[in-house]
């Protein structure tokens, strides 16, 4: 993997897009992309939690698990961290930033079990990134998530009014549309010498 900051960012943002290339975090992708406003809310919440959880899990991995030779515990430890982080954020926002809290609504607790967050924390460990590079990577991934989910919500708003055959209505046509968008993103492979 390239260790240039820009390359890490673009790789996470477009070339290895978490939704369309890695197929991680698909449940919010289909569940919350029904309209633009909810898509924005979800992306903002993901960006927030992804950055924070990447920092904390990175610290836990390199300062607790690795020195104690307990790398196999990382799944359990990371889930624990992410879940309590989301809880903390929810309380914090509810108290101090009421408008932001009500704007994010249900999406904040939903992130607790979001595989995109857990996946990112693992990838950061797999790629052996430094904390700074991990931040860039998490930022790119979250923005890539936002880009795709917002693009796709616009497509879905159009799909609502399209004359679709009855058997394809609802999720079938959404899956097909998602695969076509993913095919389009395949075109980015090899961009700036980056590959999957």
């Amino acid at each position, binding site marked *: 993997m390239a260790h240039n900051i820009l390359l890490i960012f673009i790789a996470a943002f477009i070339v290895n897009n978490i939704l369309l290339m890695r197929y991680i975090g698909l449940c919010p992708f289909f569940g919350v992309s029904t309209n633009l406003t909810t898509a924005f809310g979800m992306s903002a919440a993901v960006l927030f939690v992804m950055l924070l959880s990447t920092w904390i899990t990175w610290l*836990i991995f390199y300062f*607790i*698990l690795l020195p*104690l*030779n*307990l790398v*196999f*515990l990382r799944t*359990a*430890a990371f889930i*624990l*961290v992410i879940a*309590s982080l989301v*809880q*903390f954020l929810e*309380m*914090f926002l*509810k*108290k*101090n930033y009421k408008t932001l809290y*009500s704007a994010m609504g249900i999406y904040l607790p939903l992130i607790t079990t979001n595989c995109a967050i857990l996946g990112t924390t693992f990838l950061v460990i797999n790629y052996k990134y430094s904390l700074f590079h991990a931040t860039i990577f998490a930022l790119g991934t979250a923005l890539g998530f936002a880009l795709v989910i917002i693009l796709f919500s616009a497509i879905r708003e159009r799909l609502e*009014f399209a*004359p679709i055959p009855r058997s394809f209505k609802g999720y079938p046509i959404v899956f097909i549309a998602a695969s076509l968008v993913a095919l389009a993103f395949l075109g980015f492979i090899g961009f700036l010498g980056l590959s999957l």
Partner: protein
Amino acid sequence: MIELIKSILILGSLGLILGLVLVFIYKKFALTGSEMENKIKAILPGSNCGACGYAGCAIYAEKIINENVSLNKCLPGGKEVSEKLAQITGREVQLTEPQIAVLICRGGKDECRELFIYDGGTDCRQAYIMHGGNKSCVFGCVGLGHCAKVCPFHAITMGSNHLPIINEKKCTGCGICVKECPKNVLRLIPRTKLVYLACVSKDRGKAVKDVCTVGCFACNICIRACPYQALTMVNNLPVMDFTKCTDCGICVHRCPTDSYVDRAKARPYAMISPACTGCGECVKVCQFKAIEGMPNSRHKVLTGKCVGCGECFKVCPVRAITMVGALGYQVKTA
């Protein structure tokens, strides 16, 4: 073995620390008055219909506590909920009259012919974009049932005549259908109101007659007939002043096109007792020629023609007229 103990210790202490941190944070960020909020939330219906003007029951509960929003905004809950809220918060409540949604159009597919064949999307709003729907009347109900879909209480069903039928028992007057209807043919009226005009056509005369058999063509008969001056003609439609209207039902029966709707399940009819002196006052006020009789002899009511408006009852100088019928409803003479 050491590894096992180590992992249990690490994971356990990690969980413990995070748990303690969360407890600490929860204490620090504890919301004041949350108990009251939960009580209010338990009382509110929880259907999140938005009739109060806020995004849902939870937000309305918050606003009641934090911003002293009035307690009578919950239309589905009505009087009961307002009173319970008043008990909990210890505040006064001004009660609003419960309302009900009614359809201000009677032109179904039998009454109002179709202008063109429409086979587009099956939602009123889509059909509305296409020249305002395929009904020949541009003002009336499209008839594709968007209101039935949006009603959170399932109070609206589509009739065979392609007009929505509103179940008065289920309707809570939340007003969602009124906001959603692209044609504005649904309206909220007080629940106690019995008579209303069910037409929104701003055309007059032949323009209405050509497209709909039950449309109001602004003939002014109801306006002249109303004994209480409750009706005025605005934009070729009679507008009813609810404070003046007594729900007597004269307009309903005088209307040549049947454009009015009478929600009353039954109306009484007049009966004349032997005390009648035959003065003829009642014959003068009856707009339906339902009272007959020779002068100075006892008059007779033709029950087939009497609509139960009660005008004769009011003018009779000797109080010889009684209103009977209508679900046991009876107005006794003195």
